[in-house]
């Protein structure tokens, strides 16, 4: 895959580039500031981009804003946001346009390189990938808590993994269950929560996230 890496700290940029290259991907451009990131995203049109939230010149959310901006101009441009802390607020902003190709991860998710590359490929394919920490926050926040009371513990786990962006097959692998067992769970979950399932994995994830994000 052709990848753009936007990260202002040399150590992390360098580490990320080496990791991606070790997995046989090609880093076509790196950026160290918000404006550079936007420029690289628009000119390179990468298969996927890895973007840090906090970057110069303001050291605020420059990277996040560059990503949102680029996606406004090139809808569906796959971007994976990496950050040292995750906020539901940012997750909401990233998911707001309803198109796929979005990932939002803590930087340490990179430690499990196989899963990270997996998520990156999912985002590049137009899917959604959310850090377990984001999903955990979504599932435990006050308003979701009440609505999810009707789910069994197992259903709760399946919903969480599904919200991270995993397919039925991948969820099954994580929970050591068959794909058909998972699809029984999902049907039951959707029935209880009143979400329509049209079989498209990404649309399903977005529906789940939208449901969880509902105030």
């Amino acid at each position, binding site marked *: 895959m052709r990848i753009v890496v936007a990260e202002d*700290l040399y*150590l*992390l940029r*360098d*580490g*990320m580039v*080496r*990791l991606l290259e*070790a*997995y046989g991907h090609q880093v076509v451009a790196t950026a160290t500031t918000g404006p550079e990131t936007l420029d690289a995203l628009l000119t390179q049109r990468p298969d996927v981009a890895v973007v840090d939230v*906090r970057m110069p010149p303001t*050291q605020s959310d420059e990277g996040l804003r560059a990503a949102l901006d680029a996606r406004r101009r090139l809808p569906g441009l796959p971007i994976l946001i990496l950050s*040292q802390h995750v906020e539901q607020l940012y997750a909401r902003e990233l998911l707001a346009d309803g198109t796929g190709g979005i990932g939002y991860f803590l*930087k*340490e998710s*990179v*430690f*499990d*390189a196989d899963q*990270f590359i997996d998520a990156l490929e999912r985002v590049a394919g137009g899917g959604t990938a959310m850090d377990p920490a984001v999903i955990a926050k979504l599932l435990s926040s006050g308003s979701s808590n009440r609505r999810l009371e009707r789910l069994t513990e197992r259903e709760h786990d399946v919903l969480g993994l599904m919200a991270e962006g995993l397919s039925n097959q991948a969820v099954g692998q994580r929970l050591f269950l068959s794909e058909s067992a998972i699809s029984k769970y999902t049907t039951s979950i959707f029935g209880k929560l009143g979400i329509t399932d049209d079989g498209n994995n990404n649309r399903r994830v977005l529906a789940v996230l939208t449901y969880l994000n509902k105030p």
Partner: protein
Amino acid sequence: MRQLVPWLASAAVGFVRACVVVVVSMLVPAVWAAAVGLWIWWWGGNPWPAVVPFIWACIGTLALSRPVCRMVRSVVAERTGTVIPPGYRKAAPVVRMSTGYWWNGYSYERTSRDARRDQRMRLWWSDPATWRDLRFAVIAPVTMGVVAAVPPAGVVAAVVGFGHPAASMRLIGVLGVAVAIGAAPYAWRAVGPVSVRFLGPSPAMALADRVDELTAQRADTTVAQAAEIRRIERDLHDGAQARLVALGMSLATVERLMQTDPDRAKALLREARAGAATSLTELRDLVRGISPPVLTERGLVDAVRALALDSALEAAVSADLRLRLDPPIESALYFGVAELLTNAAKHARATRAWISIAGHGTDVVVEVEDDGEGGAGVRAGGGIDGLRRRLAVFDGTLEITSPAGGPTRVRMVVPCESL
């Protein structure tokens, strides 16, 4: 002869100063004298029309009292170096409200000019300093005015006396000269004690000033604290936290490369180990920047000794302080010394420094001197200014002398009950 010339010079200077003091302190009596003169000359001393010049004189006194006090204050500050705080109430900002009217802290006015004028009048009327000024305008002529008038009066006596042929009058002339010359170097000095006694702020005004000062300090402290917390967050985010992430990333890459390219994997592992060591150093430095462990463990004197050992300068520490101070004061002084040493090495290009820490009565005095180029000044918002503000929180002071060419000498004094 050798002593006579400077003495005469000081007498001449003193004479001029005495004249200035007389003119300034006699302005208000001159207005009254003019009013009385006008009354006698124009209305022939009739009691009823006296009201008119009386009102004029009152208005003149009210208008002149504040300028007179201001002049006396500037004379005292210039000639004796004693700064008497004016202690006038400060005007609140005049702001436009959403209704379009202007609020001056007392009332709403249609235009900003009206608002300002109204505010000025109210401030003038309600300010205790106004009444103090009036009192001073009455006291000044009969105290320092009279004393300072001695040399000019002597000169007048000399002129009159020598202009008259009679011998007794000449004697008066000679006496006049003697008095004028003898009193000239001293007569003007009455202005100092008199104005310190009567022109200084009253306890209520001093209290009001103190409240203003404390309010400003509280705001400063809050801002400084917020800035410090943000610095720590930034340091952690870009430093230790980022290094740990990089470490994990390297290990993930190593895991992948283990099978395909073991040599590169080994090189990466070495880098990762070095990275772990560096992040530990950074964390240690950060902790030291927040609260130096040696300060907690051993107190100010040993912490400054440790600082001197680590400093780029050859720094000598002499200390005469047995007791531990309050932790916040220790911390402020410690970071003060650290900042001064950094400045000395970085800006003044000094090679040596001397630090002394001593207790004088209930004050802790810390002095830092270097052999650098000097030329350090107190810039608003600069490092020294920040240091002064941090000390001011404890009612501490900072004096700096730093002529171009050096050396720089800084003296920090903080009162401390525990001494």
